[in-house]
């Protein structure tokens, strides 16, 4: 018997539970709403005269700002609530009676929780970009990919933390609360970091924040610190290679946390 079938069946079962009616329909609607209606075009105002890359970045950021929160809500629901309740209720225990390695079961659960959500998010976003700004999408595809990579890093970091908490505590409630707190806290912390950077005239705090959430590094790469020259002599305009380093570094952190989750699930998780 091949190893593929048990994996695909467990994945299908997990998708069936995570996206049962009406969740898929509601979230697809919210994604579309977030992309086409709640898009914020404020970012593009001061980049109107910028380079083609900066325009592509601005349009992409505008478009994803509304639906990124939908993606975050969906991974909160699937990772903390979905996996947490599967652990609490014993469904994972049932999966453990099937001829599939523990890591295969976790991969199936994560593909359902994150992969499907991500596909839905990117599918609608890229389609929207193609419909709304076809002249930007094709020539600046790498900028668009970079923008998504930078913006998705922090939600993925939160989901990795939620995964670890859910596995260790074997319930999703606390992981869910921590996820929400972390998501809200980043907006506050980034604001504080900005003012600390202005006050100390050192970009160190912004650099630290960018390592966790590289969308800030990308924002400063394309937009710089517009409008702060009167307040402070702080300048931070990371180059593309530096920005790529921040994005790469953040994904290393995310990947490390997921690997920790896999190690715990495969070797330590007692049910």
């Amino acid at each position: 018997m091949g190893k593929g079938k048990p994996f695909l069946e467990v994945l299908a079962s997990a998708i069936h539970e995570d996206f049962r009616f009406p969740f898929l329909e509601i979230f697809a609607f919210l994604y579309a709403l977030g992309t086409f209606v709640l898009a914020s075009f404020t970012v593009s105002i001061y980049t109107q005269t910028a380079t083609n890359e900066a325009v592509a970045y601005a349009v992409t950021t505008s478009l994803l700002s509304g639906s990124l929160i939908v993606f975050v809500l969906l991974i909160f629901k699937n990772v903390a609530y979905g996996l947490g309740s599967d652990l609490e209720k014993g469904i994972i225990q049932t999966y453990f009676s099937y001829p599939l390695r523990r890591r295969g079961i976790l991969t199936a659960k994560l593909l359902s929780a994150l992969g499907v959500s991500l596909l839905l998010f990117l599918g609608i976003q890229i389609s929207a970009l193609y419909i709304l700004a076809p002249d930007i999408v094709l020539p600046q595809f790498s900028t668009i990919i970079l923008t998504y990579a930078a913006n998705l890093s922090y939600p993925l970091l939160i989901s990795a933390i939620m995964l670890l908490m859910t596995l260790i505590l074997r319930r999703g409630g606390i992981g869910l609360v921590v996820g929400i707190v972390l998501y809200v806290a980043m907006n506050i912390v980034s604001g504080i970091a900005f003012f600390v950077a202005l006050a100390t005239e050192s970009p160190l705090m912004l650099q630290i924040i960018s390592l966790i959430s590289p969308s800030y590094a990308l924002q400063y790469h394309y937009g710089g610190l517009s409008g702060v020259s009167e307040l402070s002599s702080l300048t931070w305009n990371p180059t593309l290679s530096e920005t790529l380093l921040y994005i790469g570094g953040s994904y290393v952190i995310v990947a490390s946390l997921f690997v920790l989750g896999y190690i715990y699930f495969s070797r330590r998780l007692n049910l």
Partner: protein
Amino acid sequence: MSLIVAENLVKSYGRVVAVESLSLTLDEGSVTGLIGPNGAGKTTTIKMILGLLKPDKGVVKVFGQNPWDNTAIRSMIGVVYEKAFFPAHQKTLEYLQRVCRIFGVSESRAMEVLELVNLQEASDRQIKALSAGMLQKFAIAHALVHSPKLIVADEMTANLDPQARSELLDVVLQLNRDEKAAFLLSSHILPELSRVCDSVAIINRGKVWAFGKLSELYEKYAVGIIRVSTDSPYELEAEIKKLNYVKEVNSDIRGISVTVVEGKEDELYEDVPKLAKKIKAKILGIETGSASMQELYRLAITAKERK
């Protein structure tokens, strides 16, 4: 060949020692009962056997292999947990067909196992719509899909009505007889275990207090027990207790179990009718060596505690 070999298993939850130096074996084709009070360590033992818990110390082998994250042995084991949970929003037949595909068996097997546990009428129902008893039956059907050589069941009949229990025990006997399936059954409902088990492990405070073939255990612990069936057990018990060669008396609604000093069995046979006549009780039968599983369990525990 031994399907399960557990040697000196130890498992603690913080400061609480759930299983302490527990050893047992389960042979091919046997039906072994794991009996003991709540908190004795039965579920922890089963979880270690199934590879859900890692023992702190000791070794467990199932089909000669370490069960932790071992996919090779999962195709040979059927599992029924005390609390069965399945993806709630899927239909029973559809989910079992999925399980058939997981194990690489024909999808028609799904309906067969539903029929085996009398659940064919619920084939179109969502799992969440099943009652506790039906869910338990579904869990059993789920465990039988791939015709495993070994079925491990923790309190398999806990949520079932008497008729369903009886039918299920028939299924156990049938699978054991026809397909040579071995069973490890944990239960606190002792009479039903005595119906199907050929071996028993009595677990108390995380240790095996007695383990062996039922016949051997009866011989070891239930010697000198005489069962008196009567219509007035409690009144007759009071009279029997006065006899100086009687070591222990226990009565229930149907009769009295009397343990006497060795060699005094005949005297009891003579005295009981006299005592019954005195209190106008009716004797329905007197039998030697017919202790119930409940009594066997109690006697084994008492004997161990005395040691």
